[in-house]
């Protein structure tokens, strides 16, 4: 069904057990020009993902069958596609658990449709500002146009968000980025006070690119301010 519709701005897989909410989400997103596909259980989520090949996944954290966290890990294991969690819990533990399992962003219910659409747009937007073709930070070579990161010829797999985060830091080495600035530049929204997003993603990025994530050398914490890219 998706083949014929090239005017769509993107394909979104909605994994939620609440049919009313799924349908409403579908209406709103289709209204915004997205193609949607619904999935009601966690068990069917991964097959649906393989079949539909979405540009973005909206994932409820609490699902019958396979848990949302497990679905998130399963999808992340085979793809870097942006995942936005829908959660009814805003407690730090739940949020951090979701982010650590691979989600790029989260929206707490009840959310405003506009807010959700803004986040989806931000995730589907590529960093379109022209930058240098390639960057070097530490012993990493970043091919900005080709979206790949290499260490000594070996490619390191990063999700698009992690890639954007790394490029953002590496494009201005030695400049310290506050978490708020990173939220604005990488996630693409202002006034989002939740800096847990940044913390968790920096941890995830470090676990992939740092030789010793306990003693990071590429993404360095500047106490009380934020992060910067640096290599000694």
């Amino acid at each position, binding site marked *: 069904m998706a083949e014929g519709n090239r005017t769509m701005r993107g394909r979104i897989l909605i994994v939620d057990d609440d049919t009313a909410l799924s349908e*409403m989400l579908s209406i709103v997103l289709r209204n915004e020009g997205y193609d949607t596909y619904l999935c009601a259980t966690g068990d069917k989520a991964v097959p649906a993902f393989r079949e539909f090949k979405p540009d973005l996944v909206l994932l409820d954290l609490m699902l019958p069958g396979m848990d949302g966290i497990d679905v998130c890990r399963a999808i992340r294991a085979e793809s870097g596609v942006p995942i936005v969690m829908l959660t009814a819990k805003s407690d730090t533990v739940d949020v951090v658990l979701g982010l650590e399992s691979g989600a790029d962003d989260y929206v707490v*219910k009840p*959310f405003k449709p506009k807010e959700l659409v803004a986040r989806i747009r931000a995730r589907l937007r590529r960093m379109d500002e022209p930058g240098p073709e390639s960057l070097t930070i530490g012993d990493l070579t970043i091919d900005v146009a080709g979206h790949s990161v290499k260490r000594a010829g070996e490619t390191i797999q990063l999700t698009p968000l992690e890639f954007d985060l790394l490029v953002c830091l590496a494009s201005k080495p030695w400049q310290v980025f506050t978490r708020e600035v990173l939220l604005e530049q990488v996630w693409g929204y202002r*006034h989002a*006070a939740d800096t*847990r997003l940044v913390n968790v993603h920096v941890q995830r990025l470090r676990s992939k690119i740092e030789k010793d994530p306990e003693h990071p050398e590429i993404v360095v914490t500047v106490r*009380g301010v934020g992060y910067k890219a640096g290599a000694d």
Partner: protein
Amino acid sequence: MSTVVLLLVGWVMMSQVTDGVLESRRGSAQAEARAQLTSLSNTINAADPTTINQQLSELVLGTNRPGLYDVLLVPTDTATSNAIRYTGLVDSDSIPQALASSVMSDDSKLWDTYTLINYRDGPSVPGLVMGSQLRVNSTGDRYAVYFLFPLTAQQETLDVVQRALVTAGLLLVVLLGAVAWLVTRQVVTPVRMARRIAERLAAGKLEERMQVRGTDDLARLAVSFNKMASNLQRQIRRLEELSRLQRRFVSDVSHELRTPLTTVRMAADLLHESRDQFDPISRRSVELLQNELNRFEELLADLLEISRFDAGAAALDLEDVDLRDIVNRVLENHESLLRRKGCEVQLDIPEPCRAQVDARRIERILRNLIGNAIEHSEGLPIRISTAYDEDSAAVAVRDHGVGFRAEEAEMVFSRFWRADPARARTTGGTGLGLSIALEDARLHGGRLDAWGSPGEGAYFRLTLPRRPDVTLSGSPLPARPADASRVVSDKSLVDVGAPYQKLTGGEQR
């Protein structure tokens, strides 16, 4: 203590035995001495005066009973013979001076005393000396006759008694010690164990119990103690279970209520956006639906937050932030409200004011305080100040609106309390904002103080420890605004925000 008693008893017994032994010996010695003295006197007076000296020597030797006593005959100054006669090599200096003069002063009485008897050929022994005068009628000479009874046998008896007493005493002391030790083990040890276990119970190790041995009072104490511990454990478990259920309930409610609300919200938004196509009645209905949904959402969010505090499920997510950044962010968020109210903001935030806080919660507190101030500003400027000292950082928000009475300063933090019920519904808010702000401040170990005066406006001061290990003592900002009129009584300042003892759980509430 027992040693002292034993010594006393021993001393009394010893002196009684000594007195008894010596008295009986003295009695028999006196009888012996009198008899000897009488026969001596008779014999000497019947003798021929010319051989008196010879006779005396023989008599002295004759009265001697070797081993029982010795005899010493000392002539007085008036005697014709000045030889001292004695038996058994007793030394004449064995006679105490006091006895000698007593004997000299009285010629009929038999004197006695206890002393040491010295021998010329051996060691001195304790003994009893009896003395009296012997008058020789024919010459008129007077002699002092002494009978020296050695008390060696008595001394030995007393020594044996004394040794027996000392041995018995020592044994008694040892036995008493052993008994005391046993009693200690029987009584004190269980009491100590009870104390130790009570301490462990207090420390939260609820499964601790005392050992029950025997059927005495201590065993009953242990049984009661264990019963108490079991009851405590059961109660605490039940409370924990209740608290867990409540948390679970809050979590379930949040999920169950939020999901349909999200759907309703989205549907309403969709309708709201296309309201211009509706007839007036439907349009107004959609507007009302939208507004009330906003209120409902806010109320639900606040209620969930409050129940999270009540369940003790709220946790801090500390980071080092500059409070000024939060103030600025909140002001940006309130831009449209500021414009609508025509309210001017005066900022007194001169220098970075850093503290380790949960930025999300502090932003929520300040959003509430500043939002309230703008709402009640009545078009007059509001003032926001920050300050810090070594241990604490503070933010104060001042408005010059209607204010509130001093008695109401306590109530502003109460849930669903409104200063003026009549106008409450128009100003919005859920009525939970300040309660949540107070809980947030307490969670940090900080405090939130309110000052108000009718017609003068209100002043809220938030004080936070700069590090989580600090206990607040004061605040770097004054308790009431500098421009407050002086007639206001101290009662207008109410400290509701007594800081939590940190990390002690929910029971201190």
